[in-house]
C-alpha cells in the first residue's frame, strides 16, 4: 500500500506532458484539436439551452514561429449558455474542472479539452487567453488569464466588467497558439462540413488566415430532445465510482444507498440484490472495506434482475435531422437513414444511427466515403481502427447491389453516456460486440433501402437503354430493307417505336 511519491505533478502538468493522448500531437494536429475542442464547448453550451447554435470561428495569422510553423490567433464566439463569472477562471484555467461530469450524453467529459487548447497556446506563445462571457445578465465579464501549470490553478492577469446593454449571451474565447494551418486545412474544413452534417440546426462560420470565409448555414431550427441526467447503472460501475459515491452519500444504510444512487434500482430490486449478494440492508456503506467494495462491484455485475438502463439520458439526432444534415452537406441523389432502438454495453446505454447516401455530389472513388460520429462529433482520424469501418468492410455489400466503385457515403453515429473511445483523443470507437451488432443491424436496414433504390434505378436505366437500342436499329432496318426491296419510300416505323415505349411502360 505504501506508495512513495518522489515528485508530484499537477493534473495540468500531467496532461501537458502527455498532450499526445489529447490529440495535440504536432503543429497541424494541434491547431485542428484546438478548433475542435472550442467548437464542441460552444455547441454544448448552446444545446444545453436548446438554442440553435451560432458559432463564429476566426483564425488569423500573427507571425512566423519557425520554418514550418506560424503563430495564429484563434477566436471562437458562441451564443451559448455563458459561464457564470465565478466559474470562468477555473473553467478555463484549471484542468479537470468542468460542468459535464453528470451522467448524460454530452461532447466534453473530462473537463479537459478546452484547457488543453489554452495550455498548448500558452506553452507555445507565452501569451494569456482572453475569455469574455455573459449568461445574459446585465454584465459581461472579461478575463485575461493563464494557467499555473505547476499548481493547476488559473492565473488571473486582468478582469473587466462591461455593461451588457444588448443582453448578449454567450462566450468568446481568444488566444494565440503555434501551428501549421496549411497542413491542417483539409481536416479542419472536413471537420466543419461533418459537424454541420450532424448539427444541421447550427450556423457555423469560419474565417481562415487567408481571410477566406466558410459559412455553413443551418437548414432547420429543430433540435433533438436534450438528454436527461441519469444515475450510473449497476452494470456499469467500477470500484473507483463506488468509492466516490460512498464518499459523497448522505445515506446511512445499504438499502437507501442503492436505491438513491443507481439507475433502475428501486426498493424491491435493492432488497433482492442485497439478499442475492448476502449483504445486510442495514450496513453503513461508509464502513465497507476495500475488499467488500470490490466484491460489491462483482456482485452488481452478476445480478441478473436489474432492468436495462433507459435511454432518456441520450440525445440521438433522430432520423429526420440526420437525413436533413446529409442532404444539406452531401447533396446526394438518394439517402436512407435508420435509428436503432436503445441498447447497452457494460451498463452504458447507447443508440446507433446510420445513414447511406448515393450519387449527386458524392464523388466516385474506390471505396465508400465513411463518416463517423460520436455524440454529434465527427471523428476524423484513425478511420481504419474504428469499429464502424470494420463492420462496413465485413458486410457483403454485393448482396445489396452495392459495389465499391459507386458514389456512396455511409454515416454511423453512436451516442452514449460513455462512448467506447479507444483513446482520450476521441478519434475512434473500440470494437465492442454489442456496439458492433447494433451498427451491423442498422447498416443492413439502410442497405436494404438502397438496394430497393438501386433496383428501381437500374430498371429505369435499362428501360432507357432499351428504348435507345430500338430507336437506333429500327430506322436502319427500315433504310436497308427499303433499299433492298427497291422502294423509294421508307416504311413507317413510328407505330413500332411508339409500341416499344408503351411496352416499356407496362414493364415498370
Amino acid at each position, binding site marked *: 500500500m505504501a506508495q512513495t511519491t518522489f515528485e508530484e505533478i499537477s493534473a495540468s502538468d500531467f496532461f501537458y506532458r502527455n498532450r499526445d493522448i489529447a490529440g495535440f500531437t504536432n503543429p497541424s494536429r494541434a491547431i485542428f484539436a484546438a478548433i475542435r475542442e472550442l467548437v464542441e464547448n460552444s455547441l454544448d453550451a448552446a444545446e444545453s439551452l436548446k438554442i440553435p447554435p451560432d458559432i463564429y470561428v476566426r483564425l488569423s495569422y500573427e507571425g512566423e514561429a519557425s520554418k514550418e510553423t506560424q503563430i495564429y490567433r484563434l477566436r471562437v464566439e458562441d451564443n451559448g449558455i455563458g459561464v457564470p463569472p465565478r466559474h470562468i477562471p477555473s473553467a478555463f484555467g484549471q484542468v479537470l474542472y468542468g460542468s459535464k461530469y453528470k451522467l448524460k450524453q454530452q461532447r466534453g467529459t473530462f473537463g479537459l479539452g478546452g484547457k488543453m487548447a489554452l495550455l498548448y497556446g500558452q506553452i507555445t506563445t507565452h501569451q494569456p487567453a482572453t475569455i469574455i462571457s455573459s449568461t445574459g445578465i446585465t454584465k459581461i465579464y472579461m478575463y485575461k488569464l493563464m494557467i499555473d501549470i505547476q499548481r493547476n490553478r488559473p492565473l488571473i492577469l486582468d478582469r473587466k466588467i462591461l455593461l451588457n446593454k444588448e443582453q448578449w449571451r454567450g462566450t468568446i474565447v481568444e488566444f494565440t497558439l503555434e501551428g501549421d494551418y496549411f497542413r491542417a486545412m483539409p481536416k479542419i474544413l472536413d471537420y466543419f462540413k461533418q459537424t454541420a452534417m450532424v448539427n444541421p440546426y447550427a450556423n457555423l462560420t469560419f474565417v481562415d488566415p487567408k481571410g477566406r470565409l466558410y459559412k455553413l448555414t443551418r437548414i432547420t431550427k429543430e433540435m433533438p430532445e436534450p438528454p436527461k441526467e441519469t444515475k450510473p447503472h449497476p452494470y456499469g460501475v467500477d470500484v473507483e465510482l463506488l468509492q466516490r459515491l460512498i464518499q459523497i452519500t448522505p445515506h446511512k444504510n445499504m438499502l437507501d444507498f442503492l436505491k438513491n444512487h443507481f439507475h433502475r434500482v428501486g426498493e424491491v430490486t435493492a432488497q433482492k440484490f442485497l439478499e442475492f449478494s448476502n449483504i445486510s440492508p442495514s450496513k453503513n456503506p461508509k464502513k465497507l472495506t476495500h475488499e467488500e467494495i470490490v466484491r460489491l462491484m462483482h456482485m452488481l455485475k452478476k445480478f441478473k434482475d436489474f432492468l436495462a438502463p433507459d435511454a432518456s439520458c441520450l440525445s440521438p439526432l433522430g432520423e429526420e435531422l440526420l437525413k436533413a444534415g446529409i442532404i444539406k452537406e452531401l447533396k446526394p441523389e438518394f439517402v436512407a437513414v435508420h435509428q436503432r432502438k436503445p441498447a447497452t454495453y457494460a451498463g452504458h446505454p447507447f443508440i446507433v444511427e446510420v445513414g447511406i447516401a448515393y450519387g449527386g455530389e458524392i464523388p466516385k472513388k474506390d471505396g465508400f466515403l465513411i463518416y463517423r460520429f460520436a455524440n454529434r462529433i465527427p471523428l476524423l482520424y484513425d478511420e481504419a481502427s474504428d469499429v464502424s469501418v470494420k463492420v462496413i468492410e465485413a458486410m457483403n455489400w454485393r448482396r445489396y447491389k452495392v459495389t465499391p466503385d459507386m458514389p456512396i457515403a455511409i454515416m454511423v453515429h453512436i451516442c452514449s453516456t460513455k462512448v467506447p473511445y479507444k483513446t482520450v483523443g476521441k478519434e475512434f470507437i473500440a470494437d465492442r460486440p454489442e456496439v458492433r451488432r447494433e451498427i451491423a443491424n442498422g447498416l443492413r436496414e439502410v442497405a436494404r433501402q438502397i438496394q430497393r433504390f438501386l433496383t428501381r434505378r437500374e430498371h429505369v436505366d435499362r428501360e432507357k437503354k*432499351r428504348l435507345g*437500342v*430500338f430507336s437506333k*436499329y*429500327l430506322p*436502319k*432496318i*427500315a433504310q*436497308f*430493307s*427499303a*433499299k*433492298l*426491296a*427497291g*422502294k423509294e419510300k421508307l*416504311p*413507317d*416505323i413510328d*407505330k*413500332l417505336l411508339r*409500341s416499344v415505349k408503351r411496352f416499356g411502360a407496362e414493364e415498370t
Partner: protein
Amino acid sequence: MEQKKHKISMIEKRKEVLASLENLGLKTYEQLDSGYFPSITMPSRSTENIHYDPQLRQYILGDRTVRRSTRNIRHLKPFTQLVWAALFSHELTSQRKTSTLRDVYYSAQAYEMTFTDQEESNNIVTDLETVLGFSREDFSIFPEERSAVFGDLTIEYTVPGYEGRTLNLTSHPDGVLIGPALTSAEFVKTTADKVIAIEKGGLFTRFIEENVHKKFNAILVLTAGQAPRATRHFIRRLNQELNLPVYIFTDGDPWGMHIAMVIISGSANAAHLRELNTPDAKWSGVWATDIVNYKLPTDPLDDVDVKRLYELQKDPRYKDPLWQREIKTFMKIKKKAEQEAFSRYGLTYIVDEYLPEKLEAEK
C-alpha cells in the same frame, strides 16, 4: 452441251440469289410498314441440330429452327446486321463485284453498322447463307485464302470485262488461282481423265515440274492445307460436270486424312449448305499402311495427333472400313509421315513408283 448448261445455270443462279435477297428485303419492309416487328426463321446451326446424312454423304441441319425477332432486344442488332449484309451482297452481286469476309467487316462502317469483331461479321454472313440457302460465294463474298489449279482444262470467263475470254489452265507454270473469276468460269474442254488434289505447295510444284499432269492425264489442284470452300466447290464441279474421278494426296497423319475427308464429306460448319463436297473423291495417301509398306521416314505421333485420331474414330464420316483401318494403323504404329518423305527414294520416286501404284489400286 454440258458447258452450255453450266453457263445458263450460272446466270440463273445469280438471278435466283438476287431475287432471294430482294425478297428478304421486301418481307422485312412489309412487316415494318404494317406495324409488325420484323422476324426471320431459319434452321438452327447448334451442334444438336447438325446430323450426318448417309444418303447425301455430308452433314446436314435438322428440323430445329431459330426465330430472330426484332421485338427481342438481343436480336435487334444481329437482325439489322443481317439485313445490311443482304443489302451489301445484293449490291456486290448485281454490280458483279466480289468481296471478302474481311471487306464485309470493314464496309459495314460506311453504313454506320458496326461489328464488334471479324467473328461477329463472319457469323452474320453464315446466317445469311442459312437464311437464303446459298453459299456466300454465290452472293459474291469469297474467302481470303486461295488455292490453285494446273492442267489441261480450258475455261471461259464469265466475270465482267472477261466474258467470252478463254484460258488453258496449263498456261502458267505456278498454276492458276482458284478465285472468284475461276470459280464462276465455265468449263470448255479438257483432255484430262482425272483430278489429283494435293495438300502442299511444294509437292504441287514438283508434280508440275515432273509433268504429272501429262504422265497421268490429270488436272492438279493445290488445296493449300484445308481446302477453302470455293476450292471444294470447284473440285465438285470438276467431278460432276466433267465426270473426272478425284484422288487426294495428303500428309500421312490425322490432319492430312481430315483434309481429304472434308473434300469428300464436307464439314459440320457448312451443314447448312449443299454442293460443296465430292462424295466420290478418293483419299489415295499417304496412308498409315503406306508408311509401313513403303518404309517411309517418320516422326512419332504426338499427344494432339493421338487425341485427334480418337475423335475421328468416332466421327460418322469415318465409319467406312478403309478409314477405320487407317486410324487403327496410325494408332498402332504411332508414327506419321509427310508427303515429302518419299524423297528418300529420290526425287521422282513418288511420281514414277508410288503414284502409279496408288492410282491403280484405287480403280
